[in-house]
Structure formats: structure tokens, C-alpha cells
């Protein structure tokens, strides 16, 4: 799939998709497969599957300093480095330069981005869970934010479709809070995780369960795309997978879109405005700046899909000002850019497992354990201290050098100890739901412009009382579970310095769906209420956050919205 460089400025497209990540790839595939001539815009460079994964086969000794992040990278990518891992040498090239791509913070916000074809679908965490009606109904039931205009039955078939296409491995549990999925065979738990699972089912009567994570990896058979085959358990996913074993736009959806002959992919294209026509009350196209030449270009189309990521799509809409929409396209409600949510984490517990010294594992599993939400589901699961719930991810593994190393000064004995595996460590890391709150917001700063003369984003958001109250329980229950399993040195933690929003890289909610244009930006089909040929299908549409990793939901809503858009176009043509 080659990026186009030919002059396409006079072409009339059926559809424009802004962004090529998890959502943009799905929009491109679905629209192209419906026969729509589609222009796909990506602000960064092209990344061709396999060819542009330069580090995929490198061992630590193939890098000058092992996998450590260099000082130069840490200085250029200083906000990305707040994660502590994305700046490491094997994959730092998939994350942005913060000096070149600045943003502002009234309150700290960690905006972790990848500007290239495939976006963060190349580097995502791959955990894939469905939302349930417990999630879709929660806002209405509790009077928080606005009600989702969608229920589980509306989106369930689209989850099916997406899951069957991309491949997700895992185990169905039949839980109302975590619907069953179309799953490939699960990866294995290791012996220490099996021990914890058995102890949990003996010791708790509130329904809490341990399972293997549901992850977007092929574990049996193949999937469509560019030669997508089974996971090889190398755990080098963030470098790009030469087997196409985990889902990315680059290996799966974009090649499918390309194969139709209907896709034109233009890279280095920074979309900054949707063009609005006051007479038809519809959008007519998109304005971009060529990132390399700095030329401004307009592209025309009948329908626009914004899939630029939650913050970037909101930014484009905020910049799309007209007489009709002085506060930005579709922003009659004033909610555009507000209600930012992320999952709060870096809270949980760890411990050491004795009695498994003669056990080890083969392979490097790109996955961990999962403990689905078990709070506020009725009966003895209800907590009065907070609303909603959380799940745990984590796992057990052996440290790669013996603890003897700390006790030995030097010499042959020390040398022997560094070659032997150490203790079994186990860790539970909670991911909690965040409530929508209009004071958590982003807005455009027209005083601070980037090198293309575009306004930058200012963030002003943080977690609230409900999240902080939830964190106490997240820590306590993690400790409790590890203790009942008989692990030693169990310690709970809640890292206060890592509590900023954005670090979960699940930022969402800036153009929420709702029933009422007065209080929301998008309708039940992801259309801008007041400009129906503009669809927003990235994380911006989320009305509440759930505690599940959200990418799968973005894909399902995108596929559904693309289907709707194609139907609408067909109706108008006939």
C-alpha cells in the first residue's frame, strides 16, 4: 500500500477519513468495501507492514546500549517519556517528538502519540473487552453526565464482526458485566497465576474471577490482511509484528481498504478544519496543511470521518469555525473538548510466590491475567464509597537474575548467580473507570502555535473524588487477593506521581454521544447532531469510560457508523 503523491486536489471523493489508527483503519476498510471512493489522510509518514519495522528482529545486543532510551530521545520526547517505556530504543521511533509537536498543560496531562500510518494501532496494549449494558446504562441510572443513546444490543453485532475479522484470543466467562466475545483459543496462565485463580475461587463469595487477558492476537488459524498468522510469543509487539499476529491498521484494515482500489492514502497531511456549507448545512470537505511543503489544500467529499484520536478530532472540530458554528463545528452544546476521561491506574499490589522454585516457563507471553470488574454489580458487591468499578491486569513471572546477586560482592559465585532465574513475582494492576466531568477539558490556544501555524491544545483535567475513593478499594482488594493466595512480602501501592490523566493512553470523551444536541455533540450513529455528514468514531464519542480497555469499542462503533454513512449516501443518490 503506497502513499499517493499525485495531485488529487481536484478530485471529488465520496468520503474522507482523517487518521489511520485503530478507528481510521476500520473506517477506511468499511467505506472502501462499500464502494465509496475514499481519501485517507494521515499527518505523519508512511509505515509499510513489515518493511518499516526496522527493529522487529533485533536482540538487546544489536542496540549500542541494550534497549535503554538514549539521553537525546529522553530530551526530545520528554512528555512521551513520562510513561517510562515508550522512549526505549526498540520502539521510540513510533512516538512523537514533543519539541516538534507541543501542547500545553494547565494541569498535567500525558498525551502519548504516534504520528505515522497506523498510529497507535502499531503500539497499542491489545487488550480487547466489550462494554456491557451495565456500562451503557450507568450514566442514566446514576444521573451522571448524559445517557448513552446506544445499548448493548445495538453494538453487539458490530463487536462480533470486528472480533471475527481481527482475531482476539481469550476465554468467555458468561458475565453480565463482561459480555462473551468471538474468541480464539486462550493463551496459557502460568503455574503461579493458576494457583492464585484456584485460591480466589475458594476464598471469595462475591463472584470475582481470574482469567487470561483477552488480547488481539491470533492464536489459531490465520486472519485476513497481509499474511497474518499465529503469535510466536516473542513479546516484541510494539516494534511492529512481522507475523502480523496482533491487529494493527497496517497489517489488517488498511491493506483491505487498499485491495478494493477505492482508497487514496495521503501522508504528511495535517487536517485542521472541516469545511461547512451554510446553505446545505453539511460539510463539503477538509482543509489540510502538507506537513512537508506547508502548502494548504482543500479536499472535497460527501461524508467526513474524523478518526484522528479523541483529542485531535476535537481539536479539528474546535478549529472549524463558521457563522453557524462560532465555537467550532457541532459545538452548540459547548461540550466539545469537555468530559475528558482516561482510566486511572498505577494502583494495586505485588508479592512474591514461594514454592515454585523448580518451575519456569517457555516463551514471552504478550498478555497477562485479567480479573474482571466485581464491584457495584448488586448484592454483596456494592460499595457506598464510590460508583462504578475496576478490573485488574497483571501476572506472575520470574526475575531474570537470582536474589543471591544482592548478597555477593564479586567473583565466580556472583558470576554463577547472575545466570540463574530469581524469585517468582506477582503483580496486580488495577484499571478504574473515570466519571465524565465537564471541568475536565481541552481547548485551543491561539497564542501558542506550532511550526505549521496551527493553534496548540491546552489540557486542564484530572481525576476526581470518585476515582480517588475507588483507588483505596483497588489497592486494598489487590492486597487481599495476594494475601489469601499465601504470597509473601505482599505490598499495596498507589503511585501518586503517576496519577495524571492521559497516562493510561485511553484518553476519550471530548465529543460525547447523546440523545440531546443541547448536551452532547454526536448522535446515536456517531454523526455530529447538527452536521450529519460528519462522523466522529475515535475515543471522542465515549459517553462514559467503562473500565475496559476501549480500542475494541472504537472499532465496533466505527464499523457501525461506516455502514450507516454508506446507507445514507445510497439513499440520497437514489
Amino acid at each position, binding site marked *: 500500500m503506497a502513499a499517493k503523491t499525485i495531485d488529487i486536489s481536484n478530485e471529488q471523493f465520496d468520503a474522507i477519513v482523517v487518521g489511520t489508527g485503530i478507528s481510521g483503519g476500520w473506517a477506511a476498510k468499511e467505506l472502501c468495501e462499500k464502494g465509496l471512493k475514499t481519501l485517507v489522510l494521515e499527518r505523519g509518514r508512511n509505515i509499510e507492514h513489515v518493511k518499516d519495522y526496522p527493529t522487529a528482529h533485533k536482540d538487546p545486543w544489536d542496540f*549500542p546500549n541494550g534497549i535503554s532510551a538514549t539521553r*537525546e530521545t529522553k530530551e526530545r520526547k520528554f512528555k512521551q517519556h513520562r510513561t517510562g517505556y515508550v522512549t526505549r530504543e526498540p520502539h521510540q521511533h513510533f512516538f512523537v517528538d514533543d519539541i516538534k509537536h507541543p501542547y500545553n498543560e494547565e494541569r498535567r496531562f500525558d498525551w502519548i502519540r504516534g504520528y505515522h500510518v497506523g498510529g497507535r494501532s502499531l503500539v497499542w496494549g491489545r487488550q480487547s473487552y466489550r462494554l456491557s449494558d451495565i456500562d451503557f446504562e450507568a450514566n442514566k441510572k446514576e444521573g451522571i453526565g448524559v445517557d448513552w443513546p446506544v445499548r448493548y444490543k445495538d453494538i453487539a453485532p458490530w463487536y462480533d464482526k470486528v472480533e471475527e475479522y481481527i482475531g482476539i484470543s481469550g476465554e468467555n466467562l458468561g458475565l453480565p458485566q463482561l459480555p462473551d466475545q468471538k474468541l480464539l483459543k486462550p493463551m*496459557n496462565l502460568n503455574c503461579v497465576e493458576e494457583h492464585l485463580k484456584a485460591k480466589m475461587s475458594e476464598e471469595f463469595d462475591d463472584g470475582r474471577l481470574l482469567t487470561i487477558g483477552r488480547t488481539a492476537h491470533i492464536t489459531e488459524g490465520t486472519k485476513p490482511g497481509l499474511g497474518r498468522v499465529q503469535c510466536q510469543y516473542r513479546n516484541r509487539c510494539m516494534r511492529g509484528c512481522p507475523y502480523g499476529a496482533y491487529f494493527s491498521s497496517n497489517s489488517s484494515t488498511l491493506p483491505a481498504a487498499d485491495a478494493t482500489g477505492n482508497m487514496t492514502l495521503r501522508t504528511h497531511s495535517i487536517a485542521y478544519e472541516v469545511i461547512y456549507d451554510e446553505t446545505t448545512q453539511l460539510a463539503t470537505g477538509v482543509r489540510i496543511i502538507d506537513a512537508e511543503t506547508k502548502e494548504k489544500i482543500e479536499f472535497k467529499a460527501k461524508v467526513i470521518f474524523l478518526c484522528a484520536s479523541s483529542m485531535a478530532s476535537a481539536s479539528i472540530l474546535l478549529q472549524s469555525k463558521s457563522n453557524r458554528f462560532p465555537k467550532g463545528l457541532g459545538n452548540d452544546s459547548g461540550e466539545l473538548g469537555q468530559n475528558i476521561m482516561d482510566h486511572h491506574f498505577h494502583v494495586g499490589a505485588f508479592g512474591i510466590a514461594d514454592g515454585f522454585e523448580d518451575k519456569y516457563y517457555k516463551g514471552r507471553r504478550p498478555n497477562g491475567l485479567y480479573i474482571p470488574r466485581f464491584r457495584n454489580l448488586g448484592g454483596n458487591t456494592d460499595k457506598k464509597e464510590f460508583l462504578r468499578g475496576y478490573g485488574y491486569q497483571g501476572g506472575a513471572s520470574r526475575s531474570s537474575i537470582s536474589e543471591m546477586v544482592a548478597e555477593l560482592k564479586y567473583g565466580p559465585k556472583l558470576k554463577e548467580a547472575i545466570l540463574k532465574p530469581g524469585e517468582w513475582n506477582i503483580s496486580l494492576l488495577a484499571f478504574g473507570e473515570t466519571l465524565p466531568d465537564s471541568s475536565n477539558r481541552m481547548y485551543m490556544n491561539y497564542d501558542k502555535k506550532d511550526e505549521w501555524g496551527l493553534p496548540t491544545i491546552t489540557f486542564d483535567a484530572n481525576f476526581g473524588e470518585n476515582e480517588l475513593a475507588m483507588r483505596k478499594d483497588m489497592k486494598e482488594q489487590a492486597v487481599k487477593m495476594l494475601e489469601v493466595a499465601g504470597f509473601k512480602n505482599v505490598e499495596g501501592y498507589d503511585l501518586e506521581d503517576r496519577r495524571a490523566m492521559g497516562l493510561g493512553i485511553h484518553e476519550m470523551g471530548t465529543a460525547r454521544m447523546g440523545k440531546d444536541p443541547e448536551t452532547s455533540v454526536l448522535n446515536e450513529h456517531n454523526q455530529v447532531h447538527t452536521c450529519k455528514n460528519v462522523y466522529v468514531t475515535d475515543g471522542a464519542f465515549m459517553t462514559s469510560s467503562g473500565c475496559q480497555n476501549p480500542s475494541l469499542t472504537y472499532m465496533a462503533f466505527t464499523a457501525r457508523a461506516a455502514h450507516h454513512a454508506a446507507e445514507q449516501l445510497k439513499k440520497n443518490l437514489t
Partner: protein
Amino acid sequence: MKRRDAIKRMGYAAGFVMVTPTILGILNSCTTEVAKWTPKFLMPEQAEVLIKLVNVFLPKTSLPSATDVNVPEFIDRYVDEIFTIEDQQIFKAAFGNTMTKISEHQGIEVLDDIEDSQLKAFLDEHLMVKGEVDTEREANPDFKGKTTSEFLNTIKTMTIQAYLTNEKIGEEVLAYEPIPGAYYCGDLKSLTNGKSWSLD
């Protein structure tokens, strides 16, 4: 997609295609002599001491010594390219202090020809391991730099890290499996003969 392209992709997918040969670089031969190696960060006399020190930590046995796998170059480059400027300054100052202490301890001015036995005597007294108390730290709890023991432990840790990040150790000494193809639990003895995996 053209058939040839498809076959090529499948080759990648099935792991048949040879990847770019690993960059052997410094690892091909033993070059750790100051005469052949120009340190990027360390002073020449510090490099001399480092060469001796890393071989006290990890001496030659049936397995290569630290200098056999070029640990000193790795440490020097790591401090140069990875450390923050602040950490570099702390490292430099601590190295200087430690050199002075070794001189005083052993009553020798030039450390170029220091014997392993003299370094061991110094480590026995100044490198504190788990369970031992660093009196220098206790006397100066707010000191921003590194105490002698902290610095020696830094060198020890970096020596181990560099040794384990070496191609020969990673591929021939530790259990090495670049493409495992599966994940499951088993007996330590039968899986790796008691060794760690080199990749994690």
C-alpha cells in the same frame, strides 16, 4: 497482491526469511585494552581501573570474563549516551572520590598497576551488600551524590547488565530462544537446565 509478494510476506510471517545479520560490532574480538579503545566519557586512568574492577566482579572461569565481552566499553558508552547530564556529573564525581579512596587505602599514588588483590581488599571494606550498613550514607543522609559503596554497587550492577546484554552470553551461555512459538509452564531443569532466558 501479487503472488511473489504474497510468498515473500508469508516467508516473513513463518519466520523463514533471514533477517539482517546481527551487528557484531565490538563483540567480535577482545578489544578491551586502553591502547585500542578510546573511552568516550571516562578519563584514561579511570578506564584502567574500570577494566580491573569489572574483572574482579566477573573474572574468567570456564565462561568469559567481563573484559572478554567488552564490559568496560559498554559502561563507558552507556554513561555517555544514556545518563542524564546530572547523573553523569554524579558518576564522574563519585568515580573521582573512589579513586582517591583506593589510593589512600592501598597507599599507592598511581592506580595503573593496582593488583586484583588490592582491589578486593578495598571492595571487602567499602562495597556494602544486602544486610550491611553504609556508614558513609548514614553520616550524610541528604548527600545528593553517591557514597563509595553506592558507586561501587552502581559499577557492579552495570557490569552485570553489560555482561548479560552481550551477544555471546545471550546466545551461548544463557538460554536463548528468539522465536519461542508458544508459552507454557514447565520444569526449570528440563526447560533451560537451570539457566535464565536471555530475552524477557
